[in-house]
């Protein structure tokens, strides 16, 4: 019986929402979808709708600021569409006929799953586009020039499983990387052939949880490299190159984030989900943090420099499908908090590729030199005040969450320590909830406490001994422990403050249980104590990692990773709340791209929405008469050529 049981009505959908920087508005006139669609389409089980952008360099407009040369690609079911994209600006210039895509492809027997334009080689009349398919093949087309069409893994000799993510290697005109649900990642050269026989591989390099092979042939052929990541058959869900292009972050269904140095193929760090697979990954614009989202409904923030999980964000009601930093709302340093507002006009347009910031150096220039080495990967962490990252995430819960992540939360404990004692008194009664965006003083204390928990048996005991500060510890930081147990006492009383506040997760330090969990901690600490005993709070986590690694076998066992830097216990890690959490659609959200004047979301039912940033909304009334809203029932597309199914 089809009955509307609750919610789900159109009225609860947002067409605009307010954050501290202003009002974001849905651009109802640039709602892209498959033309001529009629009624409800069952999108159950089909591939996620993803969106790719490219900016075509225009000799007449070298900055690209007019946005006339943007093209957008999205997939839906068996179809792939490429449109001219003008985002917010389109109404100023020339209406985009949403019924007339630049290119359109309909595939037979397979679905496009992901795609990526080559920004490096794009010209005014050419934009190489890679498309991956559910049956494993890869196609290279040029939707503008239209003459290019190459196939890779055509006979599925290399991999039969679904392509899950495809990206050009940063800055390369011919190399691209493809991940499959089989758990393998291949490097292809666009100019090479794939051969008529299955490739024979020889081991090239291997490490903890991964192995890399090369193709064993006389003449060079595709794939150039095969990376096998995680256990056999463990789906790679997404990967992302760091802004500088030298590191590669890979997330898999086994719940691991693995970060590699791309050129040396060394594993440089990893993290484990609280539970379930990791589904999406992105880098902060400065390359210092990797954010992952997954089946634990959390966004997890991992520090590249410290190689540890530094915070988790809780706000989604279902699995997180995309995470993306908003480089235009991320501000650096104390002195220019309005950096985004003043400078984004001059931001290069090449940033539009999701997850990949093409010109990272640009950022350091505008942030006034102070953090000029921020983009050099692997550089030592610099302590700077007031940096605030803006992160967005979309989920299967149909909601968008925006998060403000301040350095206070992410700050390594050594710098927080000094401020703990002063922060101690006034801020505790609020039971230590982090609200992202205003998490200032109270954060230091909790952050510090977390580190004590990780490494300090004594503190843990005093915490779990039900709020008594019977601190029999070897702690070098007894004062902090006492302050913290005061926090716990207050947090314990905080029950009443939580009324009706279901997804405001309290980051209370009230420790759980004394029995098993305590034992677990002791064991854990026992294992590590050798290397930890004389290391300072700030880096003992890293020391712990080293020990664990050497003792072997822990790497893929989540039971043993809990309580470590890979996967802190839930109450040992700061928990962020979203700045805003808005229901934007009726269907699962599958894409999120931040652009200069807007952000773009896509939905499982094949709609691509544009949301104007505050101050970027162009009054639609002035020109709306020239625009056509897509007529869903008329104007059948006449391009016979593009209506024909494409055989792979």
């Amino acid at each position, binding site marked *: 019986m089809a009955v509307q049981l609750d919610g789900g009505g159109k009225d609860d959908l947002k067409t605009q929402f307010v954050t501290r920087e202003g009002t974001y508005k849905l651009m109802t006139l640039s709602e892209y979808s498959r033309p001529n669609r009629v009624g409800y389409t069952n999108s159950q089980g089909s591939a996620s709708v993803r969106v790719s952008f490219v900016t075509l360099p225009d000799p007449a407009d070298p900055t690209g600021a007019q946005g006339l040369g943007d093209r957008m690609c999205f997939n839906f079911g068996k179809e792939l569409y490429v449109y001219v994209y003008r985002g917010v600006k389109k109404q100023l210039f020339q209406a985009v006929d949403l019924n007339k895509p630049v290119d359109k492809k309909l595939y037979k027997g397979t679905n496009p799953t992901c795609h990526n334009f080559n920004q490096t080689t794009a010209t005014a009349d050419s934009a190489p586009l890679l498309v991956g398919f559910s049956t494993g093949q890869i196609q290279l087309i040029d939707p503008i020039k239209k003459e290019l069409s190459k196939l890779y893994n055509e006979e599925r000799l290399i991999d039969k499983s679904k392509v899950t993510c495809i990206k050009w290697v940063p800055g390369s005109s011919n190399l691209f990387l493809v991940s499959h649900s089989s758990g393998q990642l291949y490097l292809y050269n666009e100019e090479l052939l794939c051969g008529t026989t299955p490739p024979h591989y020889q081991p090239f390099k291997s490490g903890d949880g991964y192995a890399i092979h090369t193709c064993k042939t006389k003449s060079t052929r595709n794939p150039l490299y095969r990376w096998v990541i995680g256990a056999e058959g463990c789906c790679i869900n997404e990967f992302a190159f760091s802004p500088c292009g030298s590191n590669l972050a890979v997330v898999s269904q086994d719940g691991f984030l693995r970060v590699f140095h791309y050129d040396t193929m060394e594993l440089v760090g990893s993290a484990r989900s609280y539970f379930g697979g990791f589904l999406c990954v992105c880098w902060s614009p400065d390359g210092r943090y990797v954010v992952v989202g997954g089946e634990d409904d959390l966004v997890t923030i991992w520090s590249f420099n410290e190689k540890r999980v530094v915070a988790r964000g809780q706000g989604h009601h279902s699995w997180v499908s995309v995470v993306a930093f908003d480089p235009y709302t991320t501000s650096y340093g104390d002195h220019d908090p309005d950096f985004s507002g003043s400078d984004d006009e001059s931001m290069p347009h090449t940033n539009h590729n999701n997850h990949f910031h093409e010109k990272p150096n640009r950022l350091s220039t505008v942030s006034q030199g102070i953090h000029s080495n921020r983009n050099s990967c692997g550089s030592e962490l610099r302590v700077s005040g007031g940096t605030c990252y803006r992160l967005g995430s979309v989920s*299967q*819960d149909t909601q968008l969450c925006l998060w403000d992540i301040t350095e206070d939360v992410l700050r390594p404990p050594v710098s927080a320590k000094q401020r703990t004692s002063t922060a101690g008194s006034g801020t505790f009664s609020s039971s230590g909830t982090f609200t992202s965006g205003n998490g200032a003083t109270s954060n230091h204390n909790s952050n510090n406490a977390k580190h004590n928990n990780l490494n300090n048996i004594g503190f843990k005991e005093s915490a779990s001994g039900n709020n008594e500060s019977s601190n029999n510890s070897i702690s070098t930081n007894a004062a902090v422990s006492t302050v913290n147990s005061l926090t716990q006492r207050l947090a314990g009383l905080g029950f009443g403050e939580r009324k009706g506040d279901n997804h405001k997760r309290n980051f209370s330090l009230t420790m759980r*249980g004394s029995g098993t969990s305590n034992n677990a901690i002791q064991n854990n600490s026992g294992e590590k104590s050798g290397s930890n005993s004389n290391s300072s709070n700030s880096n003992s986590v890293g020391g712990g990692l080293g020990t664990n690694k050497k003792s072997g076998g822990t790497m893929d066992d989540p039971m043993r990773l809990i309580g470590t830097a890979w996967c802190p216990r839930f109450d040992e890690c700061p928990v962020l709340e979203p700045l805003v959490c808005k229901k934007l659609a009726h269907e699962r959200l599958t894409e999120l791209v931040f652009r200069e004047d807007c952000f773009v979301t896509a939905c499982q039912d094949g709609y691509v929405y544009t949301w104007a940033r505050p101050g970027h909304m162009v009054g639609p009334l002035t020109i709306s008469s020239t625009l056509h809203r897509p007529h869903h029932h008329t104007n059948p597309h006449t391009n016979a050529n593009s209506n024909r199914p494409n055989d792979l």
Partner: protein
Amino acid sequence: MCVNNGRNMLLRMSLRLVFNLHIQFQGANISQLERDIGSDQFPPNEHYFGLVNFGNTCYSNSVLQALYFCRPFREKVLEYKARNKRTKETLLTCLADLFYSIATQKKKVGSIAPKKFIARLRKEKEEFDNYMQQDAHEFLNFLINHINEIILAERNQSRPAGGKGGAGDAGSPPEPTWVHEIFQGILTSETRCLNCETVSSKDEDFFDLQVDVDQNTSITHCLKCFSNTETLCSDNKFKCDHCSSYQEAQKRMRVKKLPMILALHLKRFKYVEQYNRHIKVSHRVVFPLELRLFNTSDDAVNPDRLYDLVAVVIHCGSGPNRGHYISIVKSHGFWLLFDDDMVDKIDAATIEDFYGLTSDIQKSSETGYILFYQSRDCS
């Protein structure tokens, strides 16, 4: 035969006919299932046997299969079988015989008729003594409690002078049975009187958690909502011992002891006054293969316990008294679908088909109904 709705079920039925024919003419032919698994991959000492439907007994078949693949439970039932050679017939002995006969089959795959078990079930409980479709969760609930009572009763018989209390004894809690050890968890309900601010807490046992379902959410979210704070007011005030009167209060329930096997019942049948009957809520609720709980109490013993999904009872169809039950189980790293006497190997990716629907347009759905998560530290 069950009342089937939807094309998938019809397809399955026709497949079943073919399958039955195949059974009749079987010879040395190896089954499709064995071929799918591969003879070298087939786990030793494992048997995949479908259960014959005796007229709307799929609610029982689906639950029995799920329980059979909850390893700790199967082992205890077989242990019971080995220990109790000559006792009078109970539902537990029937279950033990059924499990034993599956576990000792010569063939690796096939089907078996749980005739004795169903007959006993119909004798034990009036509600099941008919040919109507029953609620799989009600059956699971009855079965677990009933088995537990049988064990307690037998324990009392063997120690008549011991005086250790039975199930309902208010005094010192009875020594836990293996049913407790496997399924029992403890919820702690904290109530805070809004008048005197006193927080009182009370523990209660559970064998499964029953959670409401919301559209486009995860089981994690449903569990969090289960532990949301509710305000007790008007007719539902709380009798505060400290104030010695009824007061408004806030209450929440959190998990204090996490069970070895966490059974989660998704409340998909909702009474709608307008129709004067229960209707099915087909909302899409995703459930991960791995789970931890967020809604544990501060004094929880093992709050980080990590669970693996091992079995799902799935309801197919449009309402509680119509439709069909099947189950999917994980065994030796791969997933199997049990549809009464039919067994198929399925790809883990097809689990997605059982999350539910994002739209109310379709009438019929195949949705996860009872989830069985097994703690990783027990295997």
